[in-house]
C-alpha cells in the first residue's frame, strides 16, 4: 500500500529519486519498500551494517538486478526497462564494491575507458587511421592524463593497473567513473581497504567532485569519512530505511545506534 502512495510522489527536483523499491532473493526479503532521494550538488551517504542491502540497492537502481517493485527516476527519467548500458549513458555511473580496475590495461588506459561514452569511436575511422579518429584518441588520452594528475596518480599512468597499490586502484576506479562525466556518481565502498592517508585523499576527491557540481551517492562503512563529507545520510538495515537526515541527526538517532550496536559495533567507531 504505502509503496504505491510513495511512488506517486517521486521527487521532481531530486537527481535520483527512489520510491518503494523491493526485492526478494528466494524467500529472503533483501530490500523492502526503500525510498530516498539524492539531491543535486550534494553528497549522499548510504550506510548500514553488513548485509543490510546497500549493494543490492545499487544493483536495483542500475538494473543489474530486476526489481520486484518500486520506481527509480533519474534526472526526470524513469529507469524502468532500461539496460545497465543505457543507464550509464544517461549519466548515472557506478563503481563496484570489489576493486574492478581492468587488468591487462595500464592505469591511463583504464581511465580512458571511462571516457568511452563521450566519444564516437567509429570503427572505420580508427581502422583507416583517419585524422578525426586519431584526434579523438589524442584528446581522450590528454583528458585522462589530466584526471590522473588531479588525484596525484600521474606517476602510475603507464603501469599496469593491477600493479598499482590497493589505495591507488580504488582512486583509479573513482577517476575512471569521473572520466565519464557523470550526472550522478554512485560509489560502492570506495574507502574499503584504504589506510588513513588514502582515506583522506578520497575525502578530498569527493569534496572536489561536489565542487564540480556532480552529486554523489556513496556506500561507506567508514563513519568518519561519512560524517566529514556527506551532506545527507540514509541509513538502511535489513533491507529497510531506518533513518534519513544530516550526519549529526543520524548520529543521534536511537534506531541507528541500536541497529549498529545490535549487530556488531562495526561502524560505530
Amino acid at each position, binding site marked *: 500500500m504505502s509503496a504505491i502512495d510513495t511512488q506517486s510522489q517521486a521527487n521532481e527536483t531530486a537527481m535520483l529519486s527512489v520510491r518503494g523499491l523491493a526485492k526478494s532473493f528466494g524467500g529472503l526479503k533483501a530490500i523492502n519498500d526503500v525510498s530516498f532521494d539524492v539531491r543535486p550538488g550534494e553528497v549522499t551517504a548510504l550506510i548500514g551494517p553488513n548485509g543490510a542491502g546497500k*549493494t543490492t540497492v545499487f*544493483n536495483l537502481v542500475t538494473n543489474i538486478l530486476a526489481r520486484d517493485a518500486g520506481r527509480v527516476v533519474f534526472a526526470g527519467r524513469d529507469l524502468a526497462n532500461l539496460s545497465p548500458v543505457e543507464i550509464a549513458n544517461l549519466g548515472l555511473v557506478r563503481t*563496484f564494491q*570489489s576493486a574492478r580496475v*581492468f587488468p591487462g590495461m595500464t592505469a591511463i*588506459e583504464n581511465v580512458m575507458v*571511462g571516457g568511452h561514452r563521450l566519444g564516437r569511436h567509429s*570503427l572505420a575511422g580508427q581502422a583507416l587511421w583517419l585524422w578525426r579518429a586519431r584526434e579523438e584518441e589524442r584528446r581522450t588520452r590528454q583528458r585522462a592524463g589530466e584526471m590522473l594528475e588531479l588525484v596525484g596518480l600521474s606517476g602510475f599512468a603507464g603501469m599496469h593497473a593491477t600493479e598499482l597499490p590497493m589505495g591507488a586502484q580504488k582512486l583509479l576506479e573513482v577517476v*575512471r567513473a569521473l572520466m565519464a562525466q557523470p550526472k550522478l556518481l554512485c560509489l560502492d565502498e570506495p574507502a574499503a581497504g584504504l589506510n588513513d592517508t588514502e582515506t583522506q585523499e578520497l575525502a578530498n576527491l569527493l569534496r572536489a567532485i561536489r565542487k564540480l557540481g556532480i552529486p554523489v551517492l556513496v556506500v561507506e562503512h567508514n563513519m568518519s569519512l561519512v560524517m566529514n563529507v556527506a551532506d545527507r545520510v540514509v541509513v538502511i538495515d535489513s533491507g529497510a530505511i531506518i533513518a534519513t537526515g544530516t550526519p549529526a541527526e543520524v548520529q543521534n538517532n536511537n534506531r541507528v545506534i541500536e541497529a549498529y550496536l545490535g549487530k556488531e559495533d562495526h561502524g560505530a567507531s
Partner: protein
Amino acid sequence: MLEFVQIAIGGLVVGSMYAAIALGFSLIYRVTGAINLAQGGFALIAALIGYTFGVAWGWPLIVAIPAAVIATVIAGVVLARFTFVPALARLSNANVLMLTAGILTMIEGFSLVVWGSQPYATPPFSGEQPLAFGGITIPTQAFWVFGATALIIAALWFLIAETRLGKGLRACAENPAAASLMGIDVPRMTLFSFGLATLIAAIAGVIVAPSTSLQFDTGRLFTISGFVAAAIGGMASFPGAIIGGLFLGLVTQLSTAYISSLFSSAISLLILLVVLIWRPQGLIAGGVARRQDTRDDVKAAGHAAKLPAHLGWPLAALAVLVAVAIPFAVTDNGIMSSLVIAAILFMALMGLDVLMGYAGQVSLGQAGFMAIGGYTSGYLAINTEIAPALSIFAGIGVSLACALVLSVVTLRLRGLYLALATLAFGLLIDSCAVGFIDITGGPSGLVGIPSFSVAGFTFATPRAMYYLVLALDIVILLGLFGAMRSGFGRALQAIRSDQMAAAALGINTVRYKLAAFLISVTLASLAGSLYAFFFNFLAPEMVGTSRSLELVAMLIIGGESTLVGGLFGALLLTLLPVMSAPLAIYKTFASGALLVASFLHLPQGIYGVLIQLLTRLAGARGEVAAKVNPVSDRVQAS
C-alpha cells in the same frame, strides 16, 4: 518394429559409452568448474593399449584389459598433475578448456606416432556369436557395455554419497574456498577427480572398443559425443549425464538408420544448439545460481606483450622488407607453399585474436567459417562465370549470415558454454561439408577450383599468391592495429576483463562483442576462400575442427592480444614439418604439447619472449645512449 528395437538396442550400447564419458565430464566439472576435453582421448588410449597388450602381444584379455586401464589412469594422473591442476590455479575456466583441448591433441599426436593412422579392431570379450531373442540379435559385447556402465554408475554413486572421500569431493564442488578452509586439500581432490574420470573413460574405452573401429583420432569423437551428451543432459548433474548419453546414442543410431549416416552427427549437434538456446544449463540443472555482481573470472586476463613505442615502426618496416625479400631467397617450392599457407592462416588468426585475445570470446569453431567461405567461393568459381574476387565476397556474405544466426546463441553465452557452442557449430559445418555431397564433393573434396585471378591476371604460382596474401595481410594488420590501439580495442579489452564494469561505463557489450565476432568471421571466411583458390581443392578435413583447434594453438603459442603473435605460431607449426620431413608425424603432438606448455609457461607466447629480448637489448643500448646524450633522451621520453 523388430528393426526399430534392434536399432534402439544399438543406440543404447553407444549411448552407454557416451554416458560414461559424460559422467567423467560432470565429475570434473562439478569438482573444479572446468571441462576436460581430454576425456575421450583417455578412452582411446586405453583401448589402443588394450589392443597392443591383448592382440599384438597376445596377453590373455583378462590381464591385458585391466593392465591397459591401469596404465591409462597412471598416465592420466601424471599428466594432470603437471598440466591440469596447476592450470586451474592460473587460468580462467575457458582457457583451461582450451588447455585440455591441447592435451587431447597431444594424445592424438602420441597415438599417431605410436599406432599410426590405420584402424584397429579388438576382439569381443566373450566371442563373436551374438545372442538371439525372438528375432532380435544382441552382440555379447552389448551386455558387457551395459554391465560396466551400470557398475560405474553404482560405484560412483556409492563413492560420492556414502564415503568420506565423496564428502570431500562434494565440499569442493559446492565451495572450493570454504572446503580448503575446512582443511580439505583441494588440489589433491582435483587430482583424484581427474584420476577417477580417467578411470571411467578408460573402462568405457576398453569395453566399447570391440563394437567400434579405433583410429588415432577416434578419441576426439568420444570426447565430442560425451561432451554433447553432458551438455544436453546438464553439465553439473550426474543423472543428466546418463540421460544425455543414452538419449544421444538413441538419436544418432536412429537417425543413421532412418535418415542418413551423413547427417546423424549434424542432427545431434542441432539438438545441442537448440538446448543451448532454450536451456543453457542443460535439461537437468544442478547447483545454485551465482550472484551476478561479483566477478566470476578474476584469473581471466594477463598482460599482453607490448613493443616499446619507439621500436614499433622501424621494426614493422624491417619486417615488411624481409617479407618482400623472402621469395628471392627461397627457391624451394614446398617451403614457398608453406609460407603462403602460414600467411593465409595468419589472416584468420588476426580475426581470431580480435575475438579471443581482445574481446575474450572463446571460439573453437573458427575453421567452420573458413569452410563456409572456401566452399562457397570454390563452388561459385567452378560452376559459374562469376569473378573469383566476387566469389570471395559471396563467401563472406554467407559466412556473415551464418554468424548472425549463430550469434543468437553465442551472444547469450560466456566462457565454457560459448566454447561449447562454437565447437558444436564447427562440428556441424564439418558434417555438412561431408554430407552435402552435391555442393561440397563430400568426403573426397571439391576438385577443380581455378586459381585466383583478378582483372586477367592469374595468381597461379606460390610466389604470386604469396605477394597477394602478403599485401592483404599488411592492409588488414594496419587496419586492425588502428582499431585495436584506439577506443574500439580498449572497449573490447574492458569487456574481456570485466563485462559488468564495462557496461557500467556505458560500453554496449553486445554490440562490441558482435562486431568482434563479425570481424573474425570475415577474416576466417576470406582465409578459407584464399586457401581453396591456392590449393585448387578443398576437403572437409582441411577446414575442419582440427583446424579450429590448430588455430587456437597457433594463436596461444604465438601470443594473444598482440595481433602479430599469430604469425609466429602459424610459421612455427606450418614450416617445421615441411623443413624436416621426419618431424611431420610429430606435428600433431607438437602442436598440442606447445599449446599446453605456452598456456602454463609462456602466457605471452613467442611474441612476448621476442619482445622481452628486444626490450632488454634496447634497454642496454638506451642506458649507453643516456650516458652519452642525456638531454635528447629526456626530450624523447617526454
